[in-house]
């Protein structure tokens, strides 16, 4: 995802002279092309994220389209007040791009995990929260955010994730979920980098004769309420799946919607990370397995819930 981001940013930067790249001393060589083409619009802001976010807001308040980028916890919780007060309160069109969301950087330990960011950022007024499901969704989300006149948060995985879409997504729209595969029995609403895992879970369900619809619910805020309404009306079971805490994340947002819209929710289950730090060493695949987020565990739990 991060290579797609850097490539798309360079392309967009060629067309739009308002685009400025701010990095928190991260992405060694990742932005070489952008730097070479637009040296006056690239800033390594150092390991000083509070200042970076304030600088980005100041630029956006003066007509530019800054993109502030570093590892998820450092570009979200580390500078949360700058995001809230400088960016969102001023309605400054800053695009915040986070790399390594969820457990993507599992091996680096809890300092680098990010399973709370959706919760914090979606509660801030004026903020849009997008968790793209693959590299093409990253490109589309970045393009769409540059057309917005408001703050946007894009939550990415790392690099080398399986690509789900066959090519550029022509009709990508912020707040509009994408049906990846149609199904009849169960609707799997995936947000962010869980998408390939969820597709695999759907395959496993298919092998058991259960037809699963897979959805990339890339925008957590604003929620695609029309899609939710249709899904809860139609399927025997609806599940949200995210690499984020069950507190305050995508599943929580859907729960809030269910409650507020008085929609019956007996057919709803949520997959996410528990209310605990994951302290053991190990890569993302191991962490998912330990936390019940691997494809076979998702499939097993769905089967159990259907019976």
């Amino acid at each position, binding site marked *: 995802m991060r290579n797609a981001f850097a490539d798309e940013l360079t392309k967009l930067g060629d067309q739009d002279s308002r685009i400025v790249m701010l990095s928190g001393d991260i992405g060694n060589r990742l932005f070489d092309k952008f730097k070479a083409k637009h040296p006056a619009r690239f*800033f390594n802001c150092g390991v000083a994220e509070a*200042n970076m976010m304030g600088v980005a807001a100041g630029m956006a308040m003066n007509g530019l389209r800054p993109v502030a980028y570093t590892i998820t916890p450092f570009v979200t919780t580390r500078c949360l007040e700058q995001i809230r007060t400088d960016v969102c309160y001023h309605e400054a069109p800053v695009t915040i791009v986070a790399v390594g969301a969820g457990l993507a950087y599992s091996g680096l330990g809890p300092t680098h995990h990010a399973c709370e960011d959706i919760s914090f950022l979606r509660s801030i007024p004026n903020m849009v929260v997008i968790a793209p499901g693959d590299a093409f969704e990253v490109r589309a989300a970045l393009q769409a955010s540059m057309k917005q006149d408001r703050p946007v948060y894009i939550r990415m995985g790392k690099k080398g994730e399986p690509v789900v879409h066959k090519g550029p997504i022509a009709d990508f729209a912020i707040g509009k979920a994408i049906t990846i595969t149609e199904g009849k029995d169960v609707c799997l609403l995936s947000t962010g980098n869980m998408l390939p895992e969820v597709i695999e879970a759907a395959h496993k369900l298919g092998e058991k004769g259960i037809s699963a619809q897979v959805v990339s619910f890339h925008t957590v805020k604003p929620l695609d309420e029309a899609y939710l309404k249709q899904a809860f009306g139609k399927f025997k079971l609806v599940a949200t799946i995210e690499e984020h805490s069950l507190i305050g994340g995508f599943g929580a947002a859907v729960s809030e919607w269910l409650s507020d819209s008085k929609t019956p929710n007996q057919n709803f289950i949520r997959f996410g990370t528990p209310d605990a730090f994951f302290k053991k060493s190990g890569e993302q695949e191991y962490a998912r397995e330990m936390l019940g987020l691997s494809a076979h565990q998702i499939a097993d739990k769905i089967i159990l819930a259907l019976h």
Partner: protein
Amino acid sequence: MNVAVRKAATQVDAGALKQRAAQLRGKIIDMSHAAQAAHLASSLSCADVLTAAYWHVLNINPEQPKDPLRDRFILSKGHAAAALYAVLAMKGYFPIAELETYCQDGGRLAEHPPANLLPGVEAATGSLGHGLPLGLGMALSGRIKGEAFRVFALLSDGENNEGSVWEAAMFGAAQKLENVCVIIDYNKWQATARSNETLMLAPLREKWAAFGWDAHEIDGHDVGALAEAMQNIPNGSGKPVALIAHTVKGKGVSFMEDDNNWHYRAPTAEEVVKSHKELGLT
């Protein structure tokens, strides 16, 4: 006036500025009394800096508050909002009568400056340590777009407690933002204690100089000297400028000066009359 053309340095009329500062202090005291709002002493200590900036230095036109080429003045010490509101009203950004709505239900003049609500307010401040990073972003946007405006940010001394101030100081120096000027209202008090007994700021000029700024100490109540120093930004040093302005909290009213109770206290009607007399306004 076409603000695209940089105002040439002009003769400072210190006498007129002093008179303006006294009027400004009178307004601030009236507002504090009417609203029974806090932060009077903090507003009085920076009144001369604001006077020098708005009545001599800044390249601004209140009729075009969003002119892209205007100089930016950021009140990073947002708790001195009353002083900023009084200045903006006196400059004509909105009617003087609106000052009576300060802190009133439904008004635009809250205890800290709001975002995107009141003409002339460049940034919503109140949480300390935000104004300088915002200002640096504005200055860089000017550099990128080829707009030669200047950015002034007024910080409190207590605000120098915030780590983000020092992140910004290092970034501004690395970017050689010579069109940025920080003014520190060094009144030696923060909300509840002496500044240097809370976090050691001293030696403050040397700290800013060590962080790569062209740093100078200045009498923060000498409107003439403030106007001279600020109008010469960029000053040819190739560095951003920090003016460590030595001030007295509550300046201008003998019974408020250097008495930190006035960080939160508001004056009675009788004290308002006494203050105006001392300021030579009656």
